[in-house]
């Protein structure tokens, strides 16, 4: 009997408002069973208010080998709030 089954990636939310965080994966015959197994495996002790399961094969990921994907050819400091003058500093300098 084939019990290898598909794998589902599990995302765990500790409290409402927090992000769902990837915690691992389970083998399951269908999504409902995946949720049940994910609860037993990842939510049997610490607080959890919500779980997501996603078929592993439905995850599209970047390739670590393809380091060009994230390469930044130009200076991107103009995207960073710290690269600009602060209005609070101007107020502080006044006093």
């Amino acid at each position, binding site marked *: *009997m*084939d*019990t*290898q*089954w598909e*794998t589902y990636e599990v995302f765990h939310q500790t409290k409402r408002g927090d992000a769902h965080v990837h*915690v*691992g*994966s*389970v*083998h399951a*015959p*269908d999504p409902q*069973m995946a949720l049940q197994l994910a609860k*037993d*495996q990842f939510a*049997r*002790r610490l607080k959890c208010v919500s779980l997501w399961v996603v*078929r592993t094969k*439905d995850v599209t*990921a970047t*390739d*670590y*080998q393809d380091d060009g994907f994230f390469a930044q050819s130009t200076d991107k400091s103009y995207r960073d709030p710290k690269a600009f003058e602060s209005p609070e500093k101007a107020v502080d300098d006044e006093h």
Partner: protein
Amino acid sequence: MQEKTHEQKLAEFEARIARGEKIEPGDWMPDEYKKNLIRIISQHAHSEIVGQLPEGKWIPYAPGFRRKLTLIAKVQDEAGHGQLLYRAAETLGKSREEMMEELLTGKAKYANVFNYPTPTWADVGVIGWLVDTSAVINQTMLAQTSYGPYARAMKRICYEESFHIKQGYDAVATLARGIPAQRAMAQDAINRWWYPTLMMSGPPDKISVHTDQAMRWKIKTKTNEQVRQEFVDLIVPQIRALGFDVPDTNCYLDEATGHYHYTQPDWEELRRVVNGDGPCNAERLAVRRKVHEEGTWVREALAAKQSKTPKAA
């Protein structure tokens, strides 16, 4: 772009490890690294699965409801750890089914300690306290391993193992405050588990065939000897603080090194037990096979459910 040579890939791989970066499933890695990891992680997974058995048999006899619930939770954790580790090994290309098959047919190896008997309640406490302390020292080291999926599994496992140690120590400390027969029972369990627990960290570095490569690629960050010494230094004062004896007349604090000196276990016994010839190997596998057979209907029910589930569009 020209394809990199094996030497270039290996150099990049080793540089990444030297910088403390984790290796992830999609990354290039030498075959030997992959093989060594599959061996270590699958043996670790099997140990968790078989590790349920020596203590699991005490669930019906646990003294009191709270200790029974605690022991059930502990044994459930071991099953969960097995699942986490099988998943980690699967990222290297070996299937869970293959690994389970190797365990059931007796081809797979697992930790020596689970092949010793648990005749008294004190064994449950001493396993949690001694064996799991040794396991946590090893696993805290493995949480630093260079392979990402294994390191992540270890972090969760270490957290849960610390509960295992606490409940084991609590059970033994309770016996330590008990009547003479209870104290004697605990001492007897310590005596029987001492050497198997020392062996658990693996053979001495000079006869271990895997250590060099595992250290070179940071699969492990400490040698068997280092892990064992850490365990001895931590546990000897605890055993004596409860008023028990360490069953080694030649165990003493070496003022010069700051470490405890201890008598080496019988390494021939370790070799025998790991290769299938320990006191309980046959019994453990027989129970594991029986349980696997008895669970067939669950797997069949789930398989039937799967065939009825519409495939995602």
